[in-house]
């Protein structure tokens, strides 16, 4: 399809929400994972359907609050979640993973170290947090996001607990032959239960992932949506005001990526929320100043807030929208791909700190964005210079901290356990096993070939063997 054929086309995206619809394919690749010898699985809505059909338990269907509060998953549930997450990782990341070397940040190296670190260290931290606030309290951590913008308790962070900390972490350690499939079952349960509870509390519809709901993340209370809609300003396509808004969005998004070492944790989309006139609202949190990162000093010097929230409204009819996905790493993709010219209204909000009360979140008029844009560009250039002077080792460990700390930072902050994790559990210290892996993973193409192949083919997420004791940890290094 070319850009010309979409002009004046009718939107068909609502067909994607009909029960029999299988969605569009956004890529040509196929997934096999642990389903060797069976029909390959595709991306999108059809992929979710097939995974559910092949599940042995009901954990991939809508589950009740009682299910979420239950102390642990059964072995079948663990394996169903393992299979689903491996497909979901492939679904959202297999094409992104073609991006190769950064030229700036050794991302594959820091990612690999981080997710193995997470698998080893998070179970104790998440158990401590659950002990502090209770299982209901973990649900409440997720539920609080329904009435907030500018919060990192969002799709990508919540997904990362299970998909990265459990899924990729276990997969990486299996590939490194540091663990066996029957090891760390109890710890896996701890991680996945925490993820399920936060996501269940946030969505409140029985699902935990956006892919289970045809890629919708409509988590916000109507009263919050109404408040935001009240601040929207109309945008004439191609007008200077439209350009000012979209350029601000792009520049803030760029800095959010950079502040998080080129990873998706800086970005958080929710929606699409259908407005009374049929247009679609997407809410986008852009975390441009994370105070826990020492390199964010340039953002602080530029006077940037913790988060800008961009509300953007798309006209689906004008666009001829065929499908819209807010995927589980909080990113919006559409068909046709280019939604930017079809933004017809927008608003921007600023949340100064992660815990600034919602009543103190400030709207910024689009005509006033110029000053903010200048400061964003200034911080971007300074941070870029800073990174360009950092050693490879510093860049790898910096990125490792972004993953390992930031993915659970918002949940620990809300639970009030972050300081305890730092003080009593030495959160910011690197485990000796991981320190040793620093050298190990850079040999024999492990980080460039072995780990990505295992992770993105889905073949490395080995199931827990039948009959494995749910209490099992790891007891032997042989």
């Amino acid at each position, binding site marked *: 399809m070319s850009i010309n054929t979409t002009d004046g086309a009718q939107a068909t995206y609502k067909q994607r929400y009909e029960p029999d619809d299988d969605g569009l394919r956004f890529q040509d690749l196929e997934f096999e994972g642990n389903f060797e010898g069976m029909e390959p699985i595709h991306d999108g809505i059809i992929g979710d359907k097939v995974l559910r059909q092949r599940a042995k338990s009901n954990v991939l269907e809508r589950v009740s609050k009682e299910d979420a509060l239950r102390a642990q998953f059964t072995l079948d549930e663990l394996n169903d979640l393992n299979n689903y997450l491996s497909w979901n990782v492939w679904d959202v990341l297999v094409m992104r993973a073609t991006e*190769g070397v950064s030229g700036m940040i050794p991302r594959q190296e820091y990612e690999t170290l981080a997710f193995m670190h997470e698998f080893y260290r998070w179970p104790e931290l998440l158990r401590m947090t659950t002990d502090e606030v209770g299982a209901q309290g973990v649900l409440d951590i997720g539920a609080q996001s329904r009435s907030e913008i500018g919060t990192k308790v969002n799709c990508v962070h919540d997904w990362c607990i299970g998909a990265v900390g459990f899924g990729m972490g276990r997969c990486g350690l299996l590939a490194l032959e540091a663990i066996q499939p029957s090891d760390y079952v109890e710890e896996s349960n701890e991680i996945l239960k925490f993820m399920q509870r936060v996501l269940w509390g946030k969505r409140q519809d029985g699902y935990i992932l956006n892919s289970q709901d045809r890629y919708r993340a409509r988590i916000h209370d109507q009263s919050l949506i109404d408040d935001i809609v009240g601040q929207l300003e109309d945008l004439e396509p191609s007008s200077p005001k439209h350009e000012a808004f979209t350029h601000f969005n792009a520049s803030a998004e760029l800095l959010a990526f950079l502040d998080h070492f080129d990873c998706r944790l800086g970005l958080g989309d929710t929606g699409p929320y259908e407005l009374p006139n049929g247009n679609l609202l997407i809410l986008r949190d852009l975390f441009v100043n994370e105070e826990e990162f020492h390199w964010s000093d340039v953002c602080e010097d530029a006077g940037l807030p913790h988060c800008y929230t961009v509300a953007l409204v798309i006209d689906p009819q004008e666009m001829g929208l065929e499908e819209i996905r807010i995927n589980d790493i909080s990113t919006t993709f559409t068909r046709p791909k280019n939604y930017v010219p079809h933004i017809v209204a927008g608003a921007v909000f600023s949340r100064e700190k992660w815990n600034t009360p919602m009543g103190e979140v400030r709207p910024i008029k689009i005509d006033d964005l110029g000053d903010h844009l200048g400061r964003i560009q200034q911080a971007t250039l300074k941070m870029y210079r800073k990174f*360009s002077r950092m050693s490879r080792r510093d860049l790898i460990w910096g990125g490792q901290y972004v993953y390992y700390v930031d993915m659970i930072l918002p949940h620990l902050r809300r639970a009030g356990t972050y300081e305890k994790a730092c003080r009593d559990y030495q959160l910011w210290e690197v485990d000796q096993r991981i320190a040793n892996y620093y050298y190990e993973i850079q040999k024999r193409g492990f980080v460039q070939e072995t780990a990505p192949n295992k992770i993105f083919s889905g073949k490395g997420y080995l199931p827990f063997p039948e009959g494995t004791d749910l209490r099992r940890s790891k007891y032997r290094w042989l």
Partner: protein
Amino acid sequence: MEVVAEGYNTFETHKSPRGVVKYLDSPQDVISLIQSGTLTEYILLVRGGTTTFLAPALSTGAIGVITMSGAPESHLGILSREFQTPCVMTAHLTNSDSRYEVGNSDEAHFDEIAKTLEGMTVQLDCAESEVGKVIAIS
């Protein structure tokens, strides 16, 4: 006018930027280009599909980008869409059989593309949904 390279198109656009291809190999190359004040004269050629490497160039008005790896779902693909900067990703030369394979492409693959396109005046055609074209105009 000859299509010298093709790749993934990150988003559909009527914008069809024209410029001299400049290969950027290091962050210092990026900083020097921005400081030169000539950023908008060039179509930027980079090896990776990540955002950070080109961050200041995107922010200050890059007109078009060609990458040798990555896809629209990559961070650079996402950001080029947001900036509305036409971008052809995982470009391959139309007169060569060499194709990028994750983890399997050797230096010769990237060198061939860089040496062929560097200094060439080109125009990007990003009107089609899936395929972006690099067209030589001199």
